[in-house]
């Protein structure tokens, strides 16, 4: 396990809800409500959860485009939730983002060259020629033909565009890339292509990914460690093996059981299992969530395996885990 590259500490992002007679702030959408995790150099960290659970918000906060309500994001020991710190560190040179919708993430009015060169221009002082070479090189890396440089985003297919998006993200040799559902808009075969590229680049440049997705198959394929998010908080966190093989939190189990399995033989069994978990989830809310419906703080149940359960149930969980392991 490598060195931690970024640490998220008790991150909270609340959006005000206005209502009432004076249109005052009466409540908050707690999009992210106390999240802690850290990502190691060169690893892929998966972040999974259902829609609206706060994944994107977390990701945006990490790249510094979302205003943080409270909490810290430490990069090289500096809290980069402050704009001045980000500026000083040239933070976005090191931390970049790949977006879900490749079309919308590229200015339709700009040529691929300008799109890829944008971060280079902002962070590096290159001559025009050097810059062009660099862009060509990047296109090469993501396997795009060099004449792409003069084209516009709409002239590419979704998969190609996403690869261009990858090229832009790696243009400044970043240390961390937040990839927010980079393939969920893509067809299966194209997804494969993009995921492959992401992996290759990671190996080549030792980039860490925060890989956000709701497709557990993809996350499993990509990441070493992962966290499962629910209602703005993390319910379970750990290595891929731990989570997939020994899920503890009911929400994790529910998520896992919902993934369609390519296992025609046992599909009825799956369905039964799914229904069982669902029932458990419906009936035992109080066991897994506090009285306000909030997720409990994380507790360590095994090395590199944390679950959100009340403190007094940690022991049970540990023993159960061990039992399962046997």
């Amino acid at each position: 396990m490598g060195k931690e590259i970024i640490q998220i500490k008790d991150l909270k992002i609340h959006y005000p809800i206005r209502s009432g007679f004076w249109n005052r702030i009466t409540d908050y959408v707690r999009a992210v409500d106390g999240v802690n995790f850290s990502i190691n150099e060169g690893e892929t960290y998966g972040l999974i959860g259902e829609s609206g659970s706060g994944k994107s918000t977390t990701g945006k906060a990490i790249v510094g485009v979302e205003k943080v309500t409270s909490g810290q994001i430490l990069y090289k020991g500096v809290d980069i939730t402050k704009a001045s710190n980000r500026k000083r560190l040239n933070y976005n040179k090191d931390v970049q983002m790949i977006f879900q919708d490749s079309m919308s993430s590229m200015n339709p009015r700009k040529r691929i060259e300008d799109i890829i060169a944008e971060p280079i221009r902002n962070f590096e002082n290159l001559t025009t020629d050097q810059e062009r070479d660099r862009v060509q090189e990047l296109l090469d890396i993501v396997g795009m033909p060099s004449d792409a440089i003069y084209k516009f985003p709409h002239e590419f297919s979704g998969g190609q565009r996403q690869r261009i998006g990858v090229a832009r993200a790696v243009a400044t040799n970043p240390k961390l890339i937040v990839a927010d559902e980079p393939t969920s808009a893509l067809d299966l075969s194209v997804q494969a292509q993009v995921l492959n590229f992401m992996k290759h680049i990671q190996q080549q440049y030792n980039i860490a990914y925060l890989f956000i997705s709701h497709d557990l198959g993809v996350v499993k394929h990509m990441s070493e460690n992962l966290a499962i998010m629910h209602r703005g908080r993390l319910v379970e966190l750990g290595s891929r093996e731990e989570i997939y093989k020994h899920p503890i939190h009911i929400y994790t189990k529910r998520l896992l059981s919902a993934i369609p399995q390519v296992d025609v033989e046992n599909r009825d069994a799956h369905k039964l299992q799914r229904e069982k978990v669902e029932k458990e989830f419906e009936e035992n809310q109080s066991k897994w969530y506090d009285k306000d419906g909030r997720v409990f703080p994380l507790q360590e149940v095994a090395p590199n395996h944390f679950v959100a359960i009340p403190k007094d149930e940690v022991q049970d969980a540990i023993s159960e885990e061990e039992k399962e392991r046997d």
Partner: protein
Amino acid sequence: MWKTVLRRLLIMIPQLIILSLLVFLLAKMMPGDPFTGSINPNTDPKQIEALKRAAGLFDPWYIQYGRWVGNLFHGDLGTSYIQHVAVTSLIADRAANTFWLSLLTTILTYSIAIPLGITAGRHQDEWQDTAVQIFNYITFAIPGFVFYILGIWLFGFTLGWFPISGSVSANASGFFGVLGSRLYHMILPAILYALITTTGTVQYLRTGIVDNKVEDYVRTARSKGVPESVVFNKHILRNSLLPIAAFLGNTITGLLGGSMMIEMVFSYPGMGKLFLDSIAQRDYSTLTALILIFGILTLIGNLLSDIIMSIIDPRIRIQ
């Protein structure tokens, strides 16, 4: 919702204060006063000056403004310098006329515009659409008054089908007689005015239909086996009418203030005409009151539009 309406009304207060101040100053900036040019053998400038003083026209503007606002709170908009009656009664009279004219115009506008818009939208890019669009462009591009004057000339004077001035005939008597006469006086101006105002509605409706036609929910309705005519009227049309409904409030209040030209051509004693007369005659008290009312109407129009929208479109919550 009532809370929100109330809040919106409260928010209007400061806006109205600024508006009133602005309007008052504007009126004061205008050269001349109600007594300017009272030059005839029967008047004496000294007496005129005495009257001006008595009317407070020599006071500094803020005192005049203060007085005006003070009276405002008692529902007193002052006395018209020219008509020598309370502005409220003057306006009430005219507002009623304009209101009925606007109402008729609105009804006519929609009864012309909606079928046209539907035809155009339904037969997008076919000849019906082209015809409607040409009609639309023409009414849009020709200044309204040219229309009005041609209309009054043809139908009022030459053919003599409609009265050419006023809001009611001198001979009308009895409740139904007066009502009939009023209606008769309104028809021609209302039709002409409606023809001009249809443009926007037709355009909105057409666009609405064209857009809604390809929405998924329409496909859903069809997949349920709903007959085409019902799909159109119940699903497409209702959704397409939303933007028009959104302007309904503004349309009505806008017509109240915006009928200057038609009222002028038809010597129809309404608010627009009153406004123009008040400017010409420097009838400040009436002028300020009118502009204030126009402002309030706009505000109410906006509010009304929002309320209407929130009623017919469940997705919208007014705030």
